[in-house]
């Protein structure tokens, strides 16, 4: 990203700039933590990288492509194919089973899932240790189990980048370690870059790289 800025309430009296021109590169196989005090702009940055929000200025390249001038349909398509999301509150779709939730990104992109898609999704559920719960509805799963399903879902479209916003914030320490290990494995096994937003110093120190945000600026990070 080059000179990335984000302001809220643009053009109004209460306009605030949250990110003050960020330059950063995330490599294809990076395993990075994004840390900072609350209000430092972590979530805003994550939303920008995830193409959920638009920067006020600057440019964001995803897989070498500039994204600023894309229309909503292209951004949505790129988001679906290149980025996997894991949120603090797992966010499974409650009307669907665990397996269907994992398949959801594929179903959105292609329609009715093929047998190969279903095999892939079952494989990912096995990978996160949830193969026994494939047909359970999400409200019949514990928080840690839901988060595992959410990770499998984030991986199903073979994204280049996995974004996680406080993925363990809602879990006990034992489950947290399990989930963290899963991100590690995804990074190694599927070769996708991982960017974790976390408050947990034990987790961030276990990452290869730590990006620290302070008042909307990156501090103390040697550009990779």
């Amino acid at each position, binding site marked *: 990203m080059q000179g990335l800025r984000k302001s809220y309430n643009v053009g109004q009296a209460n306009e605030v700039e949250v990110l003050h021109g960020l330059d950063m590169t995330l490599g294809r196989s990076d395993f990075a933590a994004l840390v900072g005090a609350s209000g430092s702009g972590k979530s805003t940055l994550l939303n920008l990288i995830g193409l959920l929000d638009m920067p006020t200025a600057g440019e964001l390249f995803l897989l070498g492509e500039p994204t600023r001038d894309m229309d909503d349909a292209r951004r949505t398509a790129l*988001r679906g194919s290149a980025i996997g999301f894991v949120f603090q509150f797992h966010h499974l779709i409650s*009307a669907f089973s665990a397996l269907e939730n994992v398949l959801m990104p594929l179903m959105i992109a292609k329609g009715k899932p093929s047998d190969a898609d279903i095999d892939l999704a079952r494989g990912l559920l096995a990978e996160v240790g949830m193969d026994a719960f494939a047909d359970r509805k999400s409200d019949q799963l514990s928080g840690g189990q839901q988060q595992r399903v959410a990770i499998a879902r984030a991986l199903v479209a073979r994204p280049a980048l996995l974004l996680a916003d406080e993925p363990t914030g809602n879990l006990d320490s034992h489950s947290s370690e399990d989930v963290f290990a899963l991100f590690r494995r995804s990074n190694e096994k599927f070769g996708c870059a991982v960017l974790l937003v976390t408050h947990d110093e034990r987790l961030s120190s276990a990452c290869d790289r730590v990006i620290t945000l302070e008042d909307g600026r990156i501090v103390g990070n040697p550009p990779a």
Partner: protein
Amino acid sequence: MWIEWTLAIRFLREGRIQSALIVVGIAVGVAVIVFLTALITGLQANIINRTLGTQAHIKVEMPDEVNRVVATAEGVVQLLLETRRAQRLRSISNWQQVRDALDGLAGVTAVSPIVSGPAFARRGEAVESVALVGIDIDRYTKIIPLQEDIIAGRLRVGSGNAVIGSQLARDLGMSVGDKLRLDAGDGRDSVVTVAGIFELGVRELDARYVYLDMKQTQSLLNLPGAATVIDITVRNIFGASEVASRIARLTGLKAESWMQTNEQLMNALDSQRLSTQLISLFVAVSVALGIASVLFVSVIQRTREIGILRAMGITRRQMLGVFLVQGGIFGLIGSLVGGVVGVGLVWVFNEFGSNLFYIPVNPILLVGSSLLATITGIISAAIPAGRAARMDPVQAIRHV
């Protein structure tokens, strides 16, 4: 569209009670519309049938006689005091040719020349004023199926025979085979045999009509070879006015359709139809608002799920589709249930109701109302669906 349908159906199934309630709401609305429309259609068809059972669709007569005003020279002011002329009984000129021409006119199903005029019917001391109607029986029964209304004797009008109404028969104490003296004034009278008695169900007609053949009537009324009226039926009864004005242009005669003769009735029917349509419209609007509000609640409830779906790559258009499909499904299922209930109500009415008349159910009404309800569902879903599509994914995901 697969993902839209899948999401829509799963969402509906998950909110089962909500879905069931709105479907019942739509069903009640559709049932009311179906029943009301069938009822009014049946009622109106019945009224029109009864009216036209004793009436031709179009009556053709000679134009009224008017005073001729002598033309004055340019620049002369003319003051005119006019007394309208009395209309004497006249024959339609060249009625045979007119009859033949009308026989070939498009949309006309039957043509019957009639000669009619006033007379007195006497029996002993009793006198009743009557209307003599001289008919060509083969042609006339195609217009008014008199043979179906004979309650005594036979429908025979030639050679000294007459058919009279039941009320007249009661008033004069007559039965089949009795002799009746008809007096048309100016010393023209004749004695006829009552061959049959009819009952049309309209008191005025049953008390006054005396059917004879044309020849007897012509000589009683002193109009040899005449026809005073030509009765016509047409294929499309609501197109009668157009046919009438075409006939008037074609022949120069006065042609009046049943709609003009029964203006008050037509007025009543029109306002009845209008009020039915208004009621249907209001019911449809409240059903549409019901669908919209249920979907609005659903969109709010699913804000977070919409956000996550957007993050996973669902487009705004697909999100719009999910909720439009839900609206359409509500409309379709609700109207199918409502159609069945509506037909059930009609059946109950026909089976256990007053039996005054029968309500037919037009399948087009059912198909039409389902189609309309489905479209209404989709349209009412537009606002909530648009809201779901416009949702900002960032805020939607943070929504608690």
